[in-house]
């Protein structure tokens, strides 16, 4: 399963909303800071890298597409 599919599966399994890859689920008010922490933990465990302080920008976590882009940048 590709990284995008893994991310999409995780996000859509937690958010009951008709999301596109670009839907900003924080701006839409669908999730909160608890889910932000949940996403950080998911990314670290699923893809096996530590999220560094300089990575902690909500722009990396706000949509499926943003997450995918961020993960790809870390995996190289």
């Amino acid at each position, binding site marked *: 399963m590709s990284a995008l599919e893994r991310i999409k599966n995780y996000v859509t*399994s*937690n*958010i*009951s909303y008709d999301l596109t890859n670009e839907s900003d689920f924080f701006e839409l008010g669908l*999730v*909160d*800071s*608890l*889910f*932000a*922490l*949940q*996403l*950080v*933990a*998911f990314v670290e*465990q699923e893809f096996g890298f530590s999220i560094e*302080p*300089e990575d*902690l*920008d*909500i722009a990396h976590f706000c949509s499926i597409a943003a997450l995918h882009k961020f993960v790809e940048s870390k995996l190289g």
Partner: protein
Amino acid sequence: MQSDLTESHLAVRSRIRDFAKSQLESVANEIDATQVTPASVINAMAENGWLGAALPTDWGGGGLDPLAYGLVTEEVGRVSSAVRSLMTVHNMSTQALLRFGSDEQRARWLPALCKGQKRIAFALTEPNTRGASGEIKTLVEEDGDGYRLTGQKTWITYGQIADLFLVFARQGKMPVAFLVERGTPGFTTEAIVDPLGTRGSMLAKLNFDRVRVEASHRVGKVGAGLNFVASTALDHGRYSVAWGATGIVRACLEASTQYATHSTQDASALIGHQLIQRRLTNILMHETTARALCYRAAQFRCRQDARAAAETSLAKYHAADVAFDAATHAVAIHGGMGCSADLPIARYLRDATVLTIIEGTQEMLQTALSSYAARKLHAEG
């Protein structure tokens, strides 16, 4: 749940029980009455490793796993909610620094914090915001190669004596976190006296009058202050409060059972009266369910499950709720003595009330947990 405890867990629980009995029990009422935690108590907590108990051994901490740390917190909370609150804020702030601090910040601060030699407080709440972290009015502006910080914080636990503060501010619309040291020019603290509960937690208001902080004191990126730095710290704080609340319930159960067994009404022991039995049963249920949720949260945290923060919020919400109810029952069981300063019962009720407000009010947690409920059910199909 008891079966989840290893020999190591049992040993640390035994050690903290001995410490609480010998070092805290006899001074807990005095701490509440004088609104001061003596330096000797704080130093003993540090020297015995309790302040840094959950922090990594690499940095001088105790390296306890989440379950062990929970057990320690419960035992301290059972005796003194004020001293437990010192553990809470010190650990939560240090954990945030550990996670988001720069290499330079970690090297400079973690050794002393992990050993409890320096104390750190968590400064998020502001006057008139009722803990709503999205309404931060403390502002920061760039000043050369540093920043200027202006604003106020309030209800800061152990703000009267902390050496270092993890302060949350706003740069424009972006939240940002800073470390501010006591004694920095323009930074002053003033004691808050006569709070309802955890009266020994030496609360303070903080005033920042164009306080200059170096760029090297910023924790994390601009914009990461709330969703990540504060949220991570609050998660650790809620975990501690959940176990501390369970400790209060345990204290209520012990005191109420003892009192009801040895006190009489109408020539028979109180414990023989059905309405007293109902109250004792309720306290027992509260102790059982609070501890069950704390253990559950510990399990999620031990395996680093992505849902650990949400499950921890659930534990805090429930444990604080039932601690208040348990303390209410305890006061009723004790009658007039439940209102007397001669016993700790009234203190349990006052302290339990505070737990429903700190680290996220019950109402704020309801908002967050209802969202979690929707996610949880959706994920479970």
